[in-house]
């Protein structure tokens, strides 16, 4: 699954640590999300969407 996490984070000038702290997850989680090695759970996806003020579909793109 592709995502725009890195772009959205860069727009706000946040480091991965900043984003990890905001979402209460480890930095490794953010790194794995951004590199496409890991897809978030639904609760985490909703948390990310709420943090950026965007719908989930605007952040995550399903790649069939």
């Amino acid at each position, binding site marked *: 699954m592709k995502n725009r996490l890195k772009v959205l984070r860069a727009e706000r000038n946040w480091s*991965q640590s900043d984003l990890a702290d905001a979402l209460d997850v*480890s930095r*490794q*989680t953010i790194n*794995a999300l951004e*590199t496409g*090695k*890991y897809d978030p759970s639904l609760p985490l996806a909703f948390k990310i969407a709420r943090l950026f003020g965007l719908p989930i579909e605007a952040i995550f793109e399903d790649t069939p």
Partner: protein
Amino acid sequence: MSALEKPKAIFSPKWLVSVGALAVCGAAFGYVTGGWFAERFPHGGGFSYLAEQGYPPLTIISLVLGGILLFIYICSAIVYGLAIFNKGIVGNRVLTGGLGSNPSSRKAYPYILVFYIAYTVVFGILTLYAAPPKLPTSFAWPMFLIGLASSLAMAWSATKLWFILDEFFRTIWVEACALASFIMLVIVLIVATAVSVGLMPAVTLYSGLVLYQLIYLITYGIVAGARDPNMLEMGEPEDA
């Protein structure tokens, strides 16, 4: 420095020094234990002694591997214990199995320490009873109770860890367990069939447990390596 330009962690001076230090520790350990074995068994190695006692080859191999596993668990307990206090070790992701210095990992280290101490105790008891000489029967109930308490401590610390570690590490844990269990199931079915039809002698529970632990270590490494691209980097990785 961008992610494309950053130097690789492997073969860096720090990496080489760490590997060299581990090699020296391994050599020292081998020298000391080898000397002990040579003194204890002047007419032959421990393997021939165990074979003379009637232990089948598979049990002897399991005892050797079990001893190595015990050494790994003791080292892990020491490392995670030090990670509670030592900033240098906490910051070294290779030593901490990729957990690093983030807040949830720091909360996890005391419970991982309890887990490995308990694991060492119960597995040590099993190794003691798998190897000669056998302990007197008066030790049976105390050893069983210690093993039981240690197993319960493992379950308690693992439950705590489940709620402390974030979903990324839980996912790696679950996937590694599932993969290892399935591989072990297939092996058990094959071996059980071979034993049932008389193609091979019976296998001890201890040998099966050693095999499962080895399979788990390998699958955990594969799953974690696939999920965590920066697993082999000692420090915190730069932003992707």
